[in-house]
């Protein structure tokens, strides 16, 4: 009975901690910013070290960031890839590496037992501070990426995404695919990767996000153990602003298959954008809110044209794309595209109804506990808050920010920020180029 009571007490405490996570924040001696949320419910720790070292830092060497980050667990301090991974696997620890367009990160999920955690941290610290980038491993990882590129190229959706980014961002660092190209990958050497890692994996460019069964002292030890030995270095220069949306245009790529993938896009929102909350609420109504959204209703429920039809903002360091997407049988492409464009035009012109905004506010406010219901989700949030420099009370203010959105503020934000007449359209499918020659598809 006494044991039960103490268990309940512990649970209640954990629950309270999760209701509104209190983010603790400090800097390491070498300038890394640490964000920590204690979560005593489960004997585990998640830690993610985020660097501004992703594809937007490739320069004129597309794929450099992804290949360099991919080398971190391929050899460090004289240990081979197999030795490094065996060390982590012995502990039951899980390692993941990612290099997207803005963020690159290395993440460790470990049991919180101090000996187990410390051993995992030692191994990951070696990867960060002493990556070897051995030539043979480099060649192999590059070959894997080349095979991966060919695989990606057979997916219509991936080709559409790559084509849209290239078209929207022109010569901006967001324009090229983070996987690089066959040509760019073949031009890379281990020295390129070593130089990239040495420049970017530095204290001043690191965000450490920690969620787990630790106290503050334990979290400080963890952060110092992971990144404390990195040189201070400096953050890379700010990214340039993306080009303003050009006039409407349509890009057509032939691809075998029964469906055409349709993408419409425009660069719109950055992280910390002053219009973020009206844009976000509006997009839920337009195409982000699953089956209840307008695009899904028009394209899927009413007409049966697609399995998935929707829209999304991808807020990034500088304006990320606003995208509408659907996939439909090749001969229905024109019809689906027309419905999507009309739905967008009408939404921007008229805005949502007050009832739609009310329902969406209820959804987002009522659903807030779901967003922070696990250590993994809280980690995502604090890593984002840290990386993009959002206010520490971002989560506390979320409810008030959503509550303040009105039908008028949504319409106003969309009218100022989204131009339906300047959307870039990408069609990838069988017969799309032919349709163009026959003049069947409107521009």
């Amino acid at each position, binding site marked *: 009975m006494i044991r039960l009571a103490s268990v309940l007490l512990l649970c209640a405490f954990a629950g309270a901690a999760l209701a509104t996570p209190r983010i603790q924040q400090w800097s390491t001696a070498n300038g890394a910013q640490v964000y920590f949320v204690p979560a005593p419910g489960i004997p585990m720790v998640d830690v993610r070290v985020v660097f501004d070292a992703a594809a937007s830092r490739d320069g004129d060497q597309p794929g450099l960031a992804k290949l360099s980050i991919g080398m971190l667990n391929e050899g460090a301090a004289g240990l081979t890839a197999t030795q490094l991974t065996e060390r982590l696997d012995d502990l039951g620890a899980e390692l993941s590496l990612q290099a997207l367009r803005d963020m690159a990160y290395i993440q460790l999920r470990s049991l919180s037992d101090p000996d187990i955690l410390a051993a995992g941290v030692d191994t990951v610290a070696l990867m960060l501070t002493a990556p070897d980038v051995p030539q043979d491993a480099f060649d192999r990882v590059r070959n894997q990426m080349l095979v991966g590129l060919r695989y990606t190229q057979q997916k219509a959706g991936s080709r559409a995404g790559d084509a849209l980014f290239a078209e929207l961002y022109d010569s901006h660092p967001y324009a090229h695919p983070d996987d690089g190209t066959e040509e760019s990958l073949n031009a890379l050497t281990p020295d390129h990767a070593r130089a990239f890692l040495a420049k970017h994996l530095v204290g001043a460019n690191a965000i450490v996000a920690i969620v787990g069964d630790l106290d503050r002292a334990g979290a400080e030890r963890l952060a110092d153990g992971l990144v404390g030995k990195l040189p201070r270095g400096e953050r890379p220069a700010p990214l340039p602003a993306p080009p303003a949306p050009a006039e409407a245009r349509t890009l*057509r790529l032939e691809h075998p298959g029964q469906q055409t993938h349709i993408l419409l896009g425009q660069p719109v929102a950055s992280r910390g954008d002053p219009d973020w909350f009206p844009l976000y609420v509006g997009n839920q109504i337009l195409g982000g809110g699953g089956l209840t959204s307008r695009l899904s209703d028009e394209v899927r429920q009413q007409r049966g*044209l697609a399995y998935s039809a929707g829209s999304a903002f991808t807020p990034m360091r500088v304006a990320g794309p606003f995208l509408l997407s659907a996939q439909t049988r090749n001969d229905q492409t024109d019809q689906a595209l027309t419905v999507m464009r009309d739905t967008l035009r009408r939404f921007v012109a008229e805005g949502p109804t007050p009832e739609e905004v009310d329902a969406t506010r209820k959804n987002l406010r009522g659903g807030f*506990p779901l967003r922070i219901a696990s250590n993994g989700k809280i980690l995502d949030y604090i890593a984002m808050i840290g990386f993009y420099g959002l206010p520490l009370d971002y989560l506390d203010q979320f409810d008030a920010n959503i509550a303040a959105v009105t039908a008028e503020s949504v319409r106003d934000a969309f009218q100022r920020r989204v131009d339906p007449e300047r959307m870039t359209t990408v069609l990838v499918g069988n017969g799309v180029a032919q349709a163009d020659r026959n003049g069947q598809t409107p521009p």
Partner: protein
Amino acid sequence: MSARALLLCLLVMPVAVLADADVHEFRLDNGLKLIVKEDRRAPVVVSQVWYRVGGSYEPSGMTGISHALEHMMFKGTPDVPEGEFSRRIAELGGEDNAFTSADYTAYHQTLERSHLEAAFELEADRMRHLTLDADEFRKEIQVVIEERRLRTDDKPLALANEQFNATAWLASPARNPVIGWPSDLNKLGIADLADWYRAWYAPNNALIVVAGDVDAEAVHTLALKYFGPLEAEPVATRRDTEEPAQFGPRQVDFELPSNIAYLIMGWKVPSLKSSRDKETSPDEVYALEVLGYLLDGSDSARLTRELVRGSEIAASAGASYDLYDRLPTLLTLTAVPSDGHDLDTMETALKAQIDRLKTELVGVDELRRVKNQVVAEKVFERDALFYQATQIGQLEAIDLPHTVAGDYVPRVRAVTAEQVRDVARKYLVDSGLTVARVHPQPGEHSRFSPGRATR
């Protein structure tokens, strides 16, 4: 590194950390089973309604009907018109969706803890009162066909997997694609769905799993209120064709618009459920589970260590085995050869890995590493509430007690090197093997890359 201390830590991991202490089970008079897992880490509740029906229940000519019915379950009842279900859950801040597999169809909502009642009210209504309107179905079946195009028809490797599976299973309903064969989807009618709904959607063929910050007794009271009044019904009987003996390896080749080569090798093996039905030792399935981990449990596992990093024959390689399938299943290896290596070399290399499992006892360190991973994963799983509910539902939906999940870690820990070798010798043999090879199409290559753009 203090390896000895670590070894100790993982092996003495307190049982309380791993046990499902707060699971409560109820059965209503109409046969509906309710299982509640109390987990108070966050003020959230997951509600799942499971029906014991799925792709492996479907007779020839009717494949895909369970999944099509899942889509129609969102199309309204006399009391709750089309779209209203999702709208009401969304307005409460909830998420809702559904999934269909070979062995079950499940509907789920995740909500702030005080809103469970709304989910129960809506689910009880559509358990017995679905409208199944013919006009709605005509549109929705097109959505399903688009889903099939998106997930399977336009994905060469998914298409190969589907036909590989139907090659391995000549007669067992495990061969059915859950989404259905294209011609069956074209012929399904609303009357078929009405029959299917009547046959399987009844409280005595359903199971409710609730997990989260709730009180089990209070959930039971709610279930009595909403599901209690529903009448038990005679549920259809299922007669699985048993797979006839296989007399040698099978091979199927694919010429599809793929610009990479792809190899699948699958061996027939028991699942926990099928081994129980046959009264063979469940030790075998846990040994197969460990075997799967040895091949592909992590980055240091054999397929990556030996074939991706070592010989560099594979660009990627993996293994899969689901011990919680209802019917006998497959232990499957998949691989993409790296440039300069062909499918023959790849197949020989994978077979050599299998031969090694049959001839060489796995070492102490390697076996311990797998067991440590299994223990840690079990702890990590607790961070995902939805997964915890799903695991209970998956087991009960195939008539295994959910407590089986608690056996997993001790059973895996008990597996010996000899048992791993013995299951490899018994099951990973040519008379259980099916091989599928996707040959790259060099002619297609220029069509893909870099791609001609016209405006």
